[in-house]
């Protein structure tokens, strides 16, 4: 099943694209697993996700923690801490 990944702010700039569809390999169960796998996909991902702890994540447009299961997620967004308001 294909999952849509969306990136914002410096995560988007460093990865070099605003979004992509990926087929997650077996064994990727949590947000932390996803970040670890993405980081291994190339220099731009390594650069964006160097400090995974600071990356905020939303599944289907709701904030989640890194231990959240990603099964059934249609849309997963990765972004830095927010600075609106």
């Amino acid at each position, binding site marked *: 099943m294909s999952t849509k990944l969306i990136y914002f702010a410096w995560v988007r700039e460093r990865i070099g694209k605003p979004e992509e569809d990926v087929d997650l390999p077996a064994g990727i169960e949590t947000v932390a697993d996803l970040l670890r796998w993405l980081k291994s996909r190339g220099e731009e991902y390594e650069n964006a996700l160097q400090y995974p702890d600071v990356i905020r994540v939303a599944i289907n447009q709701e904030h989640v923690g890194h231990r959240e299961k990603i099964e059934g997620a249609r849309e997963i967004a990765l*972004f*830095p801490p927010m600075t609106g308001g």
Partner: protein
Amino acid sequence: MAGAVVPAIRIQREDFDVAAEIAGLAKGRTDIGAVVTFSGLCRDEQGALSALELEHYPGMAEAEIGRIAAEAAGRWPLQGLTVIHRHGKIAPGENIVLVVAASSHRQAAFEAANFLMDYLKSRAPFWKKEHRADGSEGGWVEAKEADDQAAERWKKQGE
């Protein structure tokens, strides 16, 4: 009082008129005794900035602000609540965000507006990038620990 008020949430590129938003909320009503507004403006940081560029997550921005507004409406007896957040390029002196909270008495309106802003800062999916006045490449504004702490203080015991 939960569910008593339907918050009006707008995410838009265009500017807003603070007086018109207050008037719109109070129009035709005689039960409102207090209206508190907060507006956030773009600063130039002593002339260093020419603009802020606000990126947002369309869809989630509306949804998340809606969740925060619904929580405020559940916690305080509000008679009206409007939240507007702009995106795109915003020049110093221009509006960025507006919260208007209306209630019978002032305390609920003050607290709800304060709560809304603390949560917007740390949970609404917006990111500010600086455009520098000297033309050099500006960076992304860094999130402040103080903003997270400001949101934390609204947590109820046991959460």
